[in-house]
């Protein structure tokens, strides 16, 4: 048995995304954000997207391009405070924003990836983030239903991939990437290095290849990937 090669041209990979799609984007701030895949999504211009991402990046970076280009209808996120455009579009009603507690967003995505329907938690139950969500009793205490999230497509950034789609992330660039890798019908990973089969040790793989549909090799890294000078 051999494992198939999933390397793809970026244009072809992103062309599979349709208007109205739900798209998960890896990343927490800069690390782990698939800036190159996002740039191609901006170039192709798919509209009416629901974006699921921890944050909205900063001005001129990542999600900000999608917002500026009017491609986003809805954002499911934990914090958008570093992106003035996102805050302004929320306030003006141009985009619909659903806020989650950060670890609950991670668990909802993971639940989607694990084929679960929902999780039951006590997080945020007594705050406005929990308003209106169904409650049931578990072992004598009240718990709140947080539904699983899935997406049509997940866009990920890996440090290293092999051609089958096994992925390794660097340092804090891991964050939401391995969770989203499990939670979308179609998973596209950009990677700084694409290695032959056998070059990633099986014990060190962060995302197993079967979760990944397409691997895009990054020939160069744009400025967006660099250290931010504030």
């Amino acid at each position, binding site marked *: 048995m051999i494992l198939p090669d999933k390397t793809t041209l970026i244009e072809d990979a992103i062309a599979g995304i349709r208007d109205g799609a739900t798209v998960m984007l890896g990343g927490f701030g800069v690390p782990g954000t698939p800036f190159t895949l996002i740039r191609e999504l901006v170039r192709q211009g798919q509209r009416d997207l629901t974006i699921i991402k921890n944050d909205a990046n900063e001005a001129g970076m990542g999600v900000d391009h999608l917002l500026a280009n009017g491609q986003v209808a809805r954002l499911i996120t934990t914090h958008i405070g570093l992106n003035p455009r996102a805050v302004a579009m929320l306030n003006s009603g141009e985009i619909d924003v659903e806020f989650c507690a950060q670890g609950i967003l991670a668990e909802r995505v*993971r639940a989607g990836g694990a084929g679960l329907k929902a999780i039951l938690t006590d997080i945020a139950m007594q705050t406005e983030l929990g308003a209106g969500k169904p409650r049931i009793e578990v072992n004598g205490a009240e718990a709140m239903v947080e539904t699983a999230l899935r997406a049509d497509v997940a866009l990920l950034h890996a440090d290293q991939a092999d051609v089958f789609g096994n992925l390794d992330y660097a340092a804090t660039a891991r964050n939401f990437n391995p969770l989203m890798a499990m939670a979308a019908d179609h998973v596209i990973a950009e990677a700084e290095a694409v290695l032959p089969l056998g070059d990633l040790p099986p014990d060190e793989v962060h995302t197993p*290849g079967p979760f990944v549909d397409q691997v895009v090799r990054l020939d160069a890294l744009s400025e967006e990937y660099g250290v931010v000078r504030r």
Partner: protein
Amino acid sequence: MISRAAREIAPGMVVNLGIGLPTKVVDHLAPDFPVCLHTENGLTGIGPTLPVEDADRNLIDAGGAYVSTIPGSAFFDSATSFSLVRSGRLDLTMLGAFEVAQNGDLANWKIPGKFSPGAGGGVELAQKAQRVVVLSTHTDRSGKPKLLADCTLPLTAKGCVDRIFTDMAVVDVTPQGFALREIAEGVSVDQVIAATDAELSLPDGEISVF
């Protein structure tokens, strides 16, 4: 039967082969065939089974056989392993059976009062693999049919089976019940009908032999 079942695997699939007969299917795949085998104890990219003297004590499949890796294998924990199964990333699973009903119900884990070891990973494989095929003898050791109108044993999963490979035939589960697709060399259609305890629709024209 095993070699016929092996042809069910299409290039590029992710496949889980259950304990027993299904495990033997791997011996009928060409060395350069592109397929990713999964075992629920935490490995994708299973390589050949190894004899005890070459075995790695930490590297087994869910049936306890000592297996190996291939270039591109990955190890992961049990939660990730079943996330792969339940989220629909398993294209195909091949499972053993005690009973299969004409509506696709599968019973393969419990014979009340006799054999109740627990279902292991079978429930999730049966319920969530994109395609579920059964590999089994057509009848049990006492000659009793395993393909039935209704299962009598506790179910593993309802309506999950797509196709059955037996020593006598290839049978599909269709919305209209069991449909005979192929018969084994040297077996007659009447013999298959006699060994099946449910309606069995026959193909138009000549039937393929495997």
